[in-house]
């Protein structure tokens, strides 16, 4: 499964949204309805799934689905 698909799956299950809503430009808060607790939950899920640490500062930069994908790629995660 591609990195994009894995991330999309996590977002769909955590935020209870439809897969087609999870586009690259979709904003996690504004478009997908995540509140601050959802964001923390999502970050912890990404940490567990991809076995990495996301600092609060890094987490705050992750506004869109695309930014999550590119952030994980900068951490050396490809799939």
């Amino acid at each position, binding site marked *: 499964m591609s990195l994009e698909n894995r991330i999309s799956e996590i977002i769909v299950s955590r935020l209870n949204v439809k897969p087609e809503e999870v586009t690259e430009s979709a904003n996690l808060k504004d478009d997908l309805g995540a*509140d601050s*607790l959802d964001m923390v*939950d999502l970050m*912890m899920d990404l940490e567990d799934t991809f076995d990495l640490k996301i600092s609060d500062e890094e987490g705050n930069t992750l506004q869109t689905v695309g930014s999550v994908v590119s952030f994980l790629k900068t951490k050396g995660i490809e799939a």
Partner: protein
Amino acid sequence: MNLNATAVVTGAARGIGLEIAKKLISVGWTVAALDMLEDDLATAAEALGEMYKPYTVNITDSVQLKEVASAVAKELPVVKGIVNNAGITRDTLMMRMSEDQWNLVIDVNLTGAWKVTQAFMRSLIRAREGSIVSISSVVGLVGAAGQTNYAASKAGLIGMSKSLNRELAGRGITVNVVAPGFIETEMTENLPEEVRKDYLSRIPAARLGLPVEIAESVAFLMSPSAKYITGIVLPVDGGLTT
């Protein structure tokens, strides 16, 4: 009735914690009973049957707690309740209190509750429902000579719960505090007769409370009847603080 949900209860091997475990089991909860007292846990498990699952753990030890949290997640129904009940006393007048006596009581009663809540709360957030109840004390509200450490830890639980309530209430999770007055337990059994008399003279109900009376309040706050009650401190004290 089986709720198919787990309540984590700390200090559940005896005293008020054991009564809470019994009461929760009677209304359908599976109880993950956390305690350091392995023998008492085993005795309780034998008496209470398969809805009472004992886990020997020191709640001040984050590593042990993490292991227990993963074991509970694997072995029991989804966690939807947390009862922070474990507590200790190291009473002495502040002039005589050592830093160790202060630290130990804060570590177990307050930091322990924080660690346990953190270790299990994700499950409630995921479920978008659940209840967290912390057992404070009237001493946390009105103070008691010789208990600066205990009173601080019990008052701390109130601030922690009220803040956590603001984080979680939007998720259908209630966060409440029960503040017992003087209850018939081992903790109060060993009081000198004159202290006991003095307590009794201050309790409008003119008797000490029973552990089961605390358990009833906890079970109510964790029931569907109390879904809209959150962020409160419920004194169960025979009128002592009113």
